């Protein structure tokens, strides 16, 4: 039985960390034949540990896991992926069951099941996954309007927030267009078309300034930019008709052009990122214009610029060297700040701090710090992007980017003003800072209004940094008091220990709590504390596998040792963000290839992006 890699937001169980992480893993995805053999070997374990309760007759929770046959398992990947997650995390079999699989048996079960779910039929055609039509998210709409017309439009105040799926608001599945939104778009288009008269880019596009140009050329150029591809003759003709109609009514010439612009901003070809389907059964490589759009919305949350347009028009963007050069250029461009503001803010959750509720009486400093916290996180991530630094620096860095307010909050000495990169002095400074674990924005986003929330912090470490999604708690799980100052004087740690005595809670909390409790030296807004509720903070914790963590710096050290898992987490979140859908089990080989391609440089952010851009799903499409 070989142990294979954990991917797809599943991660390796902490309970098994000593077995899995410690071993030299055999990379890659098994062949189907290998996977079948592994399954046959492990199947009795599933029969013994799962099917007792989840058998065909009166199954617990209506979940039937009585499959002896590998094909049955592969036929229901959704069900078995859930089972995989539960077994891997250690939540199943429940702690209340006396007979538990040994650590080795659990490893075998996880590896066999994952192998079976991810193995690809040899010779099977590559599959880019289901196509997803994505509407411009609110942020993308704002940025696109800015880059098309130079108009700064406050989308947050004018358009409703987009719902999230899989942690990102740019995932196609939840980008609906209800009537309410359409009216909002109509209103926005009218406002923006008027505002465009006043900007240089707008005046150029509307033909108010610049060289004299026949109307049809003017319209064609407007559509080329607005639809992010060359327009069809019909599309041009319908706009020319708008212009002619305005003229027939005796309106000024620019009036008709403005109407045409409004129709561009309202068109499904502007509001959606449309990709053409083809009448072929095999997947195809997307065209250069579509590639330019995927690329620019991935890296800039906005439309392609003139250079990308030119390369796409010439049909050379897909050439690997050209593509590589463009990715490097785009990541160095200021517009790539969108990766910090849209991608990282959602992946790491620090964007929440902008409108999070924090009790101002308990944390009076927060009012001044709110904006700076988010700014620090964005600047830190943006620097990683622009300078193509290794993603490991997010876990542990010997520098922080702060202004005076934050430096004071962190207890760091700083001279001068403005934002500075401050080197941490290992002798003098607190080594818990440097990296996302010591970032006030992250520590605040994972807290409650009146206190820290160790369970949420633990779940955040697992989900964001280690690509491990903890199973949800049962509906009747208790809650901790909202304020950590309680009459019974129990610390949060003592309360959680009490909670863990309940066997139905123990199997998950044994994994979550130690990670979150290790950060207890940071209060609800990320300030350092040695004491809480009048006694010393105990942040030294022990992981479920017995690993001792000596508080925040110990957790940091441990996470750095988990770098492979962290890198996988970065890749799988990037994949979801770039493709608009989460990776499937069948994408495991793709993710592995991205990782392999970035290994040599030490997993630099730009290299990971390049790996995603070069991947088969990013460059291909199939029929739905």
């Amino acid at each position, binding site marked *: 039985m070989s142990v294979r890699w954990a991917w797809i937001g599943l991660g390796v169980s902490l309970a098994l960390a000593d077995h899995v992480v410690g071993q030299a893993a055999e990379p890659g995805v098994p062949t189907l034949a290998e996977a079948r053999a592994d399954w046959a070997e492990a199947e009795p374990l599933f029969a013994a540990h799962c099917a007792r309760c989840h058998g065909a007759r009166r199954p617990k929770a209506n979940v039937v896991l009585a499959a002896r046959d590998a094909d049955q398992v592969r036929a229901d990947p959704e069900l078995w992926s859930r089972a995989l997650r539960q077994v891997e995390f250690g939540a199943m079999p429940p702690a209340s069951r006396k007979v538990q699989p040994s650590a080795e048996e659990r490893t075998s079960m996880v590896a066999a099941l994952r192998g079976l779910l991810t193995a690809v039929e040899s010779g099977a055609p590559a599959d880019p996954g*289901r196509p997803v039509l994505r509407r411009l998210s609110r942020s993308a709409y704002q940025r696109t309007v800015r880059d098309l017309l130079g108009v700064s439009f406050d989308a947050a105040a004018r358009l409703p927030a987009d719902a999230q799926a899989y942690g990102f608001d740019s995932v196609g599945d939840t980008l*609906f*267009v209800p009537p309410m939104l359409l009216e909002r778009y109509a209103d926005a288009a009218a406002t923006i078309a008027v505002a465009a008269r006043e900007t240089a880019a707008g005046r150029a596009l509307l033909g108010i300034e610049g060289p004299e140009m026949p109307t049809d050329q003017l319209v064609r150029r407007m559509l080329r930019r607005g639809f992010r591809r060359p327009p069809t003759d019909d599309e041009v003709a319908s706009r020319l008709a708008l212009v002619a109609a305005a003229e027939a009514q005796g309106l000024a010439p620019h009036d008709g052009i403005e109407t045409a612009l409004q129709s561009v901003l309202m068109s499904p070809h502007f509001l959606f990122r449309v990709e053409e*389907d083809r009448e072929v059964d095999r997947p195809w490589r997307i065209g250069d214009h579509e590639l330019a759009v995927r690329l620019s919305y991935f890296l800039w949350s906005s439309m392609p610029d003139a250079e990308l347009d030119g390369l796409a028009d010439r049909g050379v963007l897909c050439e690997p060297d050209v593509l590589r050069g463009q990715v490097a250029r785009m990541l160095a461009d200021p517009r790539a700040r969108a990766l910090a503001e849209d991608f990282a803010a959602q992946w790491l959750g620090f964007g929440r701090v902008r409108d999070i509720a924090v009790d101002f009486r308990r944390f009076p400093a927060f009012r001044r710090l709110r904006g700076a916290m988010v700014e620090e996180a964005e600047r830190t991530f943006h620097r990683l992007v622009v300078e193509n630094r290794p993603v490991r620096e997010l876990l542990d860095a010997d520098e922080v980017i702060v202004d005076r307010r934050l430096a004071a909050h962190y207890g760091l000495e700083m001279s001068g003003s403005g934002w500075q990169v401050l080197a941490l002095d290992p002798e003098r400074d607190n080594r818990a800072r440097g990296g996302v674990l010591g970032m006030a924005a992250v520590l605040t986003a994972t807290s409650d209004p009146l206190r820290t929330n160790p369970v949420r912090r633990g779940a955040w470490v697992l989900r964001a940094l280690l690509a491990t999604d903890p199973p949800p708690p049962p509906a009747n799980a208790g809650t901790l008091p909202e304020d950590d100052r309680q009459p019974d004087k129990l610390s949060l740690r003592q309360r959680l220990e009490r909670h863990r005595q309940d066997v139905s809670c123990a199997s998950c909390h044994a994994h979550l709590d130690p990670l979150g409790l290790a950060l207890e030296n940071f209060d609800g807004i990320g300030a350092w504390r040695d004491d809480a509720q009048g006694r010393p903070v105990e942040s030294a914790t022990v992981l479920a596998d017995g690993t001792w963590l000596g508080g925040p710096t110990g957790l940091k050290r441990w996470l750095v040792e988990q770098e492979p898992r962290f890198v996988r987490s970065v890749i799988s979140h990037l994949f979801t963000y770039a493709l608009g859908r989460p990776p499937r089990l069948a994408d495991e080989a793709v993710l592995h290839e991205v990782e392999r391609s970035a290994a040599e440089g030490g997993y630099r952010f730009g290299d990971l992006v390049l790996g995603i851009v070069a991947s088969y799903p990013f460059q291909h499409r199939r029929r739905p």
Partner: protein
Amino acid sequence: MARAVRTLPALSRRTLLRGAGASVALPWLEIMEPRSRLAGALDGARRREPPRLSVLFVPNGVLPSAWTPEATGRDYELTPTLEPLETLRDRVFVLTGMRNANSREGEGHYVKTTALLSGAKVKRTGGRDLQCGTTFDQLVAQRFAGETPLPSLELGTEPVSPIVDMGYSTLYGGTISWRSPTRPAFKEIRPALAFDRLFRAQALATPRVRSVLDVVRAEAKALEGRLGGEDRDRVAEYFESVRAFERRIEGLRTGADHAEVDAAARPVDGIPADFATHVELMLDLQVLALRTNTTRVCTFMFGNAVSGRDFSFVEGVQGGHHPLSHHENDPAKQAQYQRINRWHVAQLARYLQALRSTPEADSNLLERSLVLYASGIRDGNRHDPNNLPVLLAGGGCGQLGSGGHLRLPMHTPLCNLYLTMLRMMGLEDLESFGDSTGALDLPR
């Protein structure tokens, strides 16, 4: 239409609908003249006009001991939480014993919130293939689409929070209305934009916008034909939204949809910092929408599922809604939880009073409405969708008798109430809805 948009400071608006007595004028409603929207619909025809429907959702359940009255019938004693309804008790039914059986499984809040008005099962998903069920308010909206400028108006106070929680898209917890089993109806949380939703279309009903809609509708149709699968559904949704907007503009052009609204009534941009003001504004806008007949169907979410909103502004409360709802049977927490429950009921009372103070024909808006007030769980400490806290208010255009406390057989499907209400709303031929087993026999 050229309208100088002038905005008033938020504070002065706060008192606009305050003053519960029937004789108190409603200044900002008086400045609107709902002329032709109501014209010609008087007398005999009016009586057959279906009642307005309004649903108010409150998150996190209630403290049961302070909610359910002991006695039944008309002369029951109001419980501490229901006390604010004293002057309205002849128009309010307290309905005890109903449950939403399909939302027993899943998790504690999201499922029970998003399926509250449909009784449907909710698909566990982080976002792809959301699935719930068409809600009864939307069924009404769809039946009467075209008769009012807007089929329905969905309002709330909190945005969909940016996390997937417990395997469920949090969209579920921020949505109580579903236009179809897969399409949520999004709510508006900003007062100014809600106002625009009601009246801004008048400014957009220009020849230019109409010609633009012509072009993009044709483009959507062509695109729809070239796409398949879910992509096609998404473009179809866009197409239908264009059509709905066109119908609305057409109504404006022919004068069927015309309410003279003073631009000064538009609330200021942004979300009021003070929650009480925010709620008052949103409910005022509902009254305005119903009064001007801009729509007949409104829903309002006081908060999203699991809302942790700080309620320290209520006397005797120190903390957030959801944390306090987990009272763990601690009397000190229960007392605070109850005060939050009571605050919500007081807002309901104020809203009902505003409806009652709005004359219409020979009666008032409350008599001509059905108002449902409910939470998706009974006790915030237990997350059970049994014996839900449910109030039904209004006269339903003469279909609902004077109020009282009704104890229904335990576990009566909540959908039985919806079936009853749907029939009152004019869907008489409907045989069932959700998991309904029959209509309720409410006193007339």
